[in-house]
């Protein structure tokens, strides 16, 4: 169906930031996914090829980048739950409070993940 004008979210405030955050994190994760498939497929070149790739990616800089990845996956996943909730007809009127609550929930697995990763970042 052809459209006559763009449909980019026209709002203001926290809901707008949630919308753009969802898009940016989504694009980031999609780019990571394609890279991830290529990295794992080093196994086609043999087990030692795969092990070398895994060893290379244990460098502190990559573990640090993985913390960014964990953060954007948690933001996208939990905000995605918020979008599905709205589409089912729940919570639209409390959208700001729901966004804040979900981001606070995201902090729990992030902090645990960060605690696990910290020794590898400082190594």
């Amino acid at each position, binding site marked *: 169906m052809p*459209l006559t004008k*763009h*449909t980019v*979210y026209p709002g203001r405030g926290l809901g707008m930031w949630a*919308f753009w955050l969802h898009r940016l994190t989504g694009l980031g994760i*999609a780019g990571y996914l394609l890279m991830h498939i290529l990295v794992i497929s080093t196994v086609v070149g043999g087990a030692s090829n795969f092990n070398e790739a895994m060893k290379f990616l244990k460098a502190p800089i990559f573990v640090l980048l993985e913390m960014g990845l964990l953060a954007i996956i948690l933001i996208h996943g939990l905000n*995605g739950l918020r979008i599905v909730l*709205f589409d089912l007809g729940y919570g639209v009127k409390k959208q700001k409070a729901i966004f804040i609550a979900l981001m606070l929930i995201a902090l729990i697995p992030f902090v645990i993940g960060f605690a696990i990763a910290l020794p590898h970042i400082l190594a």
Partner: protein
Amino acid sequence: MTSTTPQPQGVWAWIMQRVTAVLLIFFLGTHLFVLHYVPENMNINFLGVAARFKSVLYLIVDSGLLALALYHGLNGVRNVLFDFVVASDKRRALTIVLLIVGLAFFGWGAYALTFFIK
């Protein structure tokens, strides 16, 4: 226009984006937990992955995850691009390009996974 309006990407693509979203929360959550929060799995190497792949369930979860994530991710890219590409012939071309990218990465990824089955 609210986020609940199932246009312009098509009603089925819109529904499938939600269905895959909910499935991904479960499957990707499991994937991340098993690989990065369980201490004995954290040193990722060929033998460890091959050991996990002896489980049929794990194999189904992982190849399912490959398909789900690629569909959700590339359809999401399509949704974003559709806000900037309005002409229907260009949208069709874009959809075909993303479909080819998705199928190519699924084929290559699934092929690579078979190397872990020993």
